[in-house]
C-alpha cells in the first residue's frame, strides 16, 4: 500500500528523467534499513524524507532544464524581427535540411515533450510558425510510435541521433550504388555529427577480444562501434566489394593499409578464420581522425597504446560476419523500420519489454 502510494505519487511529483533511478535508490535504501532491523516507524519516516528530497531535486531540475530555458528562449524570440522570422521559415520549409540548429531544436522539443503534450509543447516553445516544423513533426511521429509500443520515456538522444543517421542514409540511397566511390563515401560520412552521449551506449570492452556493436543496418549501410582494449587487434583482412570509413572516437589507433602486392601471398577476406598479422609500416590515428578503406584493399587495426580505443565504422556494403559481434539483447540498437510510407530509425520492440516494471 505504502509502496504503491509512493510509486503513484512519483508519477506526478518526480521529474521523469530521474524518476526511475531515484525510486530504485529509494527502495534500495529502504531495504538496507530493513536488513539492519530499523524500527518500522523510523524506516517509514526516512523513506518519506528521502522521497521529499527527490521531489525537491525534481523541482530544481524542472526549473534548471525546462522553465529557465523557456523564459530565455521566449525572451530571445521576442527580439527577432518579424520579417526575419518569416524569411527563416520559408527557407527551412523548402530545404528540410538537418542543420545543427534543427538538431538543437529537436533536442529542445523532445525535452519539452517529456512534460507536455504536442500542442502545449509547441505553444511553450513559441512555434507559430517554426522554421523547423518538418523535424518537429518527425519527432512527434517517432514519439507516438514509441509510445504506442509501450515506451514510457522519451529518449532524446536516440531520436536526435536517429535523425542524423536517417539523414545520412537518405543521402547515400539517393545515389545509385555503383556511383559511390571512396571519395563520394568520404563526403557523406566525414561530418556525421553523432553525439558522444549516444555513441557511449555502444562502448563495451571485453578482455577476450575486441567487441563490435551494431548501431544500425540497412541494405546499403551498416554503422557500428568497436571497443578495443590495449593490445587488442584485428588481423590482416580486406572487405571485398565493401567500402569502409573508420572514425576514431577516442584513443589511439595504429593502422596498416596493405595493397595486395605489399605482403607475401593474398590478403585474406574478413571472416571467422584467423588470418595473419602484417608487420609493415603503420600510421597512428587519434580522436576525430577518419580513415577510408577502398574496395579490395587490405588493412589491419591495432590498439598499441595503453588506453582504451573506440572506433566508429561506416560500412557501405555487407557488414562483417565473424564472432566479434556483441549480443544486442541488453543494449540499444536503432532499427530501420517502415512507418507510414517512409522509413525511420526506431528503437527496437524489445525496448518496450525492457522498460516494463
Amino acid at each position, binding site marked *: 500500500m505504502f509502496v504503491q502510494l509512493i510509486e503513484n505519487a512519483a508519477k506526478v511529483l518526480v521529474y521523469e528523467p530521474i524518476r526511475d*533511478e531515484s525510486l530504485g535508490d529509494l527502495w*534500495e535504501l529502504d531495504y538496507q534499513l530493513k536488513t539492519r532491523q530499523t524500527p518500522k516507524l523510523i524506516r517509514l519516516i526516512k523513506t518519506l524524507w528521502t522521497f521529499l528530497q*527527490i521531489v525537491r531535486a525534481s523541482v530544481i531540475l524542472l526549473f534548471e532544464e525546462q522553465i529557465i530555458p523557456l523564459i530565455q528562449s521566449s525572451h530571445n524570440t521576442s527580439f527577432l524581427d518579424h520579417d526575419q522570422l518569416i524569411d527563416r521559415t520559408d527557407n527551412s520549409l523548402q530545404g528540410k535540411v538537418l542543420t545543427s540548429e534543427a538538431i538543437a531544436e529537436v533536442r529542445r522539443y523532445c525535452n519539452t515533450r517529456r512534460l507536455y503534450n504536442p500542442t502545449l509543447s509547441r505553444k511553450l516553445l513559441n512555434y507559430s510558425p517554426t522554421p523547423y516544423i518538418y523535424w518537429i513533426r518527425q519527432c512527434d511521429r517517432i514519439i507516438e510510435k514509441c509510445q504506442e509500443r509501450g515506451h514510457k520515456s522519451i529518449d532524446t538522444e536516440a531520436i536526435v541521433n536517429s535523425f542524423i543517421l536517417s539523414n545520412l542514409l537518405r543521402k547515400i540511397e539517393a545515389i545509385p550504388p555503383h556511383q559511390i566511390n571512396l571519395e563520394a563515401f568520404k563526403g557523406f560520412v566525414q561530418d556525421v555529427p553523432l553525439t558522444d552521449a549516444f555513441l557511449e551506449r555502444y562502448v563495451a570492452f571485453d578482455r577476450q577480444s575486441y567487441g563490435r556493436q551494431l548501431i544500425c543496418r540497412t541494405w546499403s549501410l551498416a554503422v557500428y562501434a568497436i571497443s578495443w582494449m590495449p593490445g587488442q587487434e584485428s588481423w590482416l583482412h580486406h572487405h571485398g566489394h565493401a567500402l569502409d570509413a573508420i572514425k576514431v572516437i577516442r584513443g589511439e589507433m595504429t593502422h596498416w593499409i596493405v595493397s595486395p602486392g605489399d605482403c607475401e601471398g593474398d590478403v585474406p577476406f574478413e571472416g571467422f578464420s584467423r588470418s595473419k598479422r602484417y608487420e609493415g609500416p603503420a600510421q597512428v590515428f587519434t580522436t576525430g581522425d577518419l580513415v577510408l578503406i577502398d574496395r579490395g584493399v587490405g588493412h589491419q587495426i591495432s590498439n598499441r597504446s595503453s588506453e582504451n580505443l573506440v572506433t566508429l565504422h561506416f560500412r557501405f556494403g555487407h557488414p562483417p560476419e565473424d564472432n566479434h559481434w556483441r549480443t544486442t539483447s541488453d543494449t540499444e540498437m536503432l532499427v530501420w523500420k517502415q512507418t507510414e510510407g517512409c522509413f525511420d530509425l526506431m528503437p527496437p520492440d524489445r525496448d518496450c519489454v525492457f522498460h516494463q516494471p
Partner: protein
Amino acid sequence: MGKLKPMGNLKPPSLPTVLEEAIMLSILERPRFGQNIVEVVSAASDGTCQISCGTLYPALRRLENRGFIRAERSEANLAVRRGHNRCYYAVTDQGREVLNNLEAMRHQIKKYDKAPEFLT
C-alpha cells in the same frame, strides 16, 4: 613559476563545485550508482559531508550535461529496487582532465602563497 594548463573552453561557472568534485572523485576509480555515491562520500568524510537526494540528482545531471560524467543504466538488483534500473555514473576523459587541472591549480596556488612578497 610554471604555467597552468589551459582548461579548454571552460568558463568559471562550468568548473565543478566542491560537492560536484566530491561526487566526481567518488566515481573516479569505478562507476557507482546514486545511493552508493552518497555512502562513499559520507564514509570518506567520516560523516561530515552528507549529500541528500535533493542535491545529488541535480548535481549528477549538471555534471552529465557538461560532459564530465556519463551515465549507464543497468538492471542490477531489480527485486530490491522494485523493477527500477540502477544508473551507474563514471567520469569521462573530459572530467578526468578537469579534475587534474583543478589539482594542478590548487598546487600552483599553494606554491604562489609561499613565494616571497616581492615576487607577488
